[in-house]
């Protein structure tokens, strides 16, 4: 009886769920986790550093805008390696923030009008391939996606 060729093993992709308090003291942990997960997904260290910055900024946005600085709420983070892309979802139950109302960066106006808002959003959009927001079951869901094909890496 001919031996059957062994099936190639499919390597399981990493998924991680984390729930943190809405405190800025957890931002360093979020950054470390994101970097580790991005490196595990195959991104080089420099790209993993940028992805960690984007998720830091997204988490900061939730704390400052959705929860208005309240430290007694929760933020769910879901890291997912989908093979072709790396996804991070942030879920909160705070105030709905319309991303269209968040000011975008304008370096000239920064200097002349002391505008400092919108830097975080600008960083997220520059680093990620897509940044989307949706409202689902009274929760805000922010989805950050980075493709692995190397496109649009700043």
């Amino acid at each position, binding site marked *: 009886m001919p031996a059957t060729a062994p099936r190639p093993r499919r390597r399981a992709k990493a998924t991680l769920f984390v729930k943190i308090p809405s405190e800025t*003291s957890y931002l*360093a942990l979020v950054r470390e986790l994101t970097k580790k997960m991005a490196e595990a997904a195959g991104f080089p260290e420099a790209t993993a550093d*940028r992805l960690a910055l984007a998720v830091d900024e997204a988490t900061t946005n939730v704390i*400052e805008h959705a929860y208005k600085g309240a430290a007694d709420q929760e933020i769910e983070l879901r890291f997912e390696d989908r093979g072709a892309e790396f996804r991070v979802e942030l879920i909160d139950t705070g105030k709905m923030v319309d991303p269209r109302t968040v000011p975008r960066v304008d*370096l000239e106006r920064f200097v002349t009008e002391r505008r400092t808002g919108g830097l975080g959003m600008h960083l997220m959009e520059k680093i990620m391939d897509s940044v989307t927001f949706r409202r689902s079951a009274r929760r805000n869901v922010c989805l950050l996606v980075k493709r692995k094909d190397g496109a649009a890496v700043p």
Partner: protein
Amino acid sequence: MSDLTVETRDVADVTVLYPHGFINAHTVREFDSAIQKAVVRRRFKIVVNCEGLSYIASAGLGAMMGAIEEIRGSGGDLRLAGLNDTVHNIFEILGFNHLYRTYPSEAEAVSSFREGGQAAS
């Protein structure tokens, strides 16, 4: 140990800030406070020595932007020295390298105020 400490040293008419650690929304107050203290003392020639800075998020960049108009309007500037690759990359993503002069070393950044020199990068 604290996530961020910021030491301040006066070198003649230039004030050098030494952030050590990382700057994010949690630690930014320490950094913002150090900049504001220099401004209150009317020390408008400021160098941020970033050799001990491992990371900076937008909160830290916002702290610099929040003070830059007053600093430049008073004849000074805020210049940066010794950025590591991570911090330099964040500056480039935001285009901050066009807004702030950066130098490889503190000595070059300090002396640039005397020469009215151009940025090294």
